[in-house]
């Protein structure tokens, strides 16, 4: 029976697979501390996952070189989820049940983080998500944390700057990924509070080749400013198309714009863009006394030396997650998930790339309005935004 032949083959393959994996999950007490990473290294969200993976691998080597944590090396298991929730769920189960990791860093997108939030909570595995959505830590799940800055704060910063410039009526553009969706929600939520009216809002796709149509529609609503909320590279089109449309109202971007690549892609059109962002991009302009300066400069130097590409705030999320985890393990004095979890909640003043983290029982994000600075682009480079 030809069918029975291959049935045998399939059984053999999986049993062998089983034996191979069983040997790998060593005891949790001694030996290396296992940390799982789920990043979307390829696929639509590769501009988030790729820098995150490189940063995590770089930082782990550095920590292990310096003797690891509590004398134990950190073993990183990185999985590429391609930005899909189904793979994130599969890897989460694999990392927790099979590899017995202490914590999972990532995923890069909100959709994936929400998908594995309950899995990590039930299996008492710490989740340090690098995604933006507020829903990850609201409602608070004891084992679930978030290192990306709050969208709400970015939105509030934008609205405050608009109030100073006397802007009342705005148009919103957002990418159709998790980041854009979360940002738009916060803009809509805080707009009435800050007396801002959103006259028009459009969502665009990563594969968009041109945004003149959408901007033309928004221009028709005679708005005083445009806010673009996206991590998708197509966002560089916004600046270019606005200039080409001779639509000269201030352009506000989200902290998703914080990547020099988008400024270069936008070229001269990007000049004058105003956006809130972490301090990574203007690390060299920070006053020497600033707590984050040392961490940021060090990170930029090592990253650019090793990977010959500019740093991005998304890569920084992985840096912060791993730093927080290492800090918590040192403070808890053991790699027991329960103790490390409590340690994270009690962490104060942890200096990361996104800001200075102060966790608490109710705040599993640890950074707020102070994480942001209003920046602008002056002839191709980032600079502090000073209202002149």
């Amino acid at each position, binding site marked *: 029976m030809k069918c029975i032949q*291959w049935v045998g083959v399939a059984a053999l393959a999986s049993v062998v697979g089983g034996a191979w994996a069983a040997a790998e999950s060593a005891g949790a007490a001694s030996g290396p501390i296992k940390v799982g990473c789920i990043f979307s290294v390829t696929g639509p969200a590769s501009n988030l996952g790729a820098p995150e993976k490189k940063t995590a691998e770089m930082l782990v080597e550095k920590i292990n070189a310096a003797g690891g944590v509590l004398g134990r090396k950190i073993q990183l298991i990185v999985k590429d989820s391609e930005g899909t929730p189904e*793979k994130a769920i599969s890897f989460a189960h694999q990392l927790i049940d099979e590899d017995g990791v202490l914590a999972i860093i990532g995923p890069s997108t*909100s959709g994936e983080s929400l998908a594995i939030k309950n899995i990590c909570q039930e299996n008492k595995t710490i989740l340090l998500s690098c995604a933006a959505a507020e829903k990850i830590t609201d409602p608070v799940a004891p084992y679930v944390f978030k290192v990306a800055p709050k969208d709400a704060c970015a939105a509030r910063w934008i609205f405050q700057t608009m109030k100073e410039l006397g802007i009342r009526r705005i148009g919103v553009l957002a990418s159709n990924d998790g980041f854009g969706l979360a940002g738009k929600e916060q803009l809509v939520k805080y707009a009435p509070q800050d007396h801002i009216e959103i006259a028009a809002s459009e969502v665009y796709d990563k594969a968009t080749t041109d945004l003149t149509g959408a901007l033309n529609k928004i221009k028709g609503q005679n708005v005083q400013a445009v806010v673009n909320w996206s991590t998708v590279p197509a966002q560089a089109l916004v600046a270019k198309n606005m200039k080409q449309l001779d639509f000269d109202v201030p352009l506000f971007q989200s902290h998703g714009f914080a990547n020099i690549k988008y400024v270069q892609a936008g070229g001269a059109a990007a000049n004058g863009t105003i956006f809130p962002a972490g301090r990574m991009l203007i690390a060299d302009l920070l006053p020497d006394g600033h707590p984050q300066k040392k961490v940021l400069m060090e990170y930029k130097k090592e990253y650019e030396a090793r990977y010959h590409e500019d740093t991005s705030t998304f890569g920084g999320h992985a840096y912060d997650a791993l730093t927080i985890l290492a800090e918590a393990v040192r403070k808890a004095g053991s790699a027991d998930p329960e103790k490390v979890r409590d340690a994270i909640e009690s962490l104060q003043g942890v200096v990361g790339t996104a800001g200075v983290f102060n966790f608490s029982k109710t705040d599993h994000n640890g950074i707020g309005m102070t994480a942001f600075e209003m920046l602008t682009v002056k002839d191709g480079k980032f600079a502090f935004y000073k209202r002149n």
Partner: protein
Amino acid sequence: MRFRRYAPIAGLVLFVIALQLALSAAGAAYYFTQITMSVYYSLVALGLCLLMGYAGQISLGHAGFFAIGGYTSAFLTTHNIATSGGGSAVRLLQQLGLLVERQDLYGNAIVNLSPWLALAIAMAVTTAVALLVGLPVIRLRGHYLAMATLGFGIIVYRVVLGTAGLGEADGFSDVPPFRLFGWLEVNGRKPFAAQNYYIAWTLVVIVMLLGANLVRSRVGRALRSIRESEEAADALGVNVARYKLTVFVLSAWLAALAGVFATHYRGGIGPSEATAFKSIRYVAIVAAGGMTNLWGALTMGVLLNFLSLRGVFGSYDDAVFGAILIAIMLFAPDGLVRVPRLFRRIRKKLDGSLSA
């Protein structure tokens, strides 16, 4: 003699049970999650195998039906109908026991449709869409058919990604478990792992049983004749249009069924389930299985998805499926699983040359 045809099915059941016992004994029960998900995905491959392998009708949009099933069921079982009026209808459903009260994320009570009703509606929606898409599409052939089905898949992807009610980019992540009978429950949590392993395999065994019978029956021959030459089949009295449409709807059902169960098992569904590339992966699986070979589609469906879900291919996951597509189409159009037959042919040639 009549029961000899069921030997392979019996073989499959034995394999399933043996695998479960072996894994549980080896303390490797953690495989069940990824196996169960792969088995649900192979259901889609089985449907596509009937459509593409047997009836010769390519479809580059079948992930769309998986998403329609999954999203309809996810929406209906999480949408709080207590607030959306229609009081009398709600009371009627209440009496019929088709409503479920539970708490949402923030702890306030909500009322949703029972997963059984959601499943029925999901299959009804799938049938309607499959007919709506199928009727014009069955007149198309070759790359026009490929284009139309690719277009259908993209429409589903765009609608799912662009509609606020369907969670946009985040999709659904709080879909309740599907309580089947008594203690039997489609649920991703660890205590239910073995139970769900068997639920998934039971679905596949039933579909394999029906499918294997179908392909050996009069209808199976008619489908294959359509693949070989539509004109000749038509001239012999095979109602080509009706058969193509029926097998199109049938394969859509299997994809939607897989979508519903997988969504309840994982507790959610995202727009990534409806991308064009996801459909192409199913095509690669059926091609690797040997096109006109249900057993091949099942084997490759479970094996390839299992390896992919374990991240064995790492960042080259897409490249592996691309390579499979090319290699199969160039070198083994009959697929990998027919390899035993290949050996037999080679052996026959060898015997022939030795004895000659």
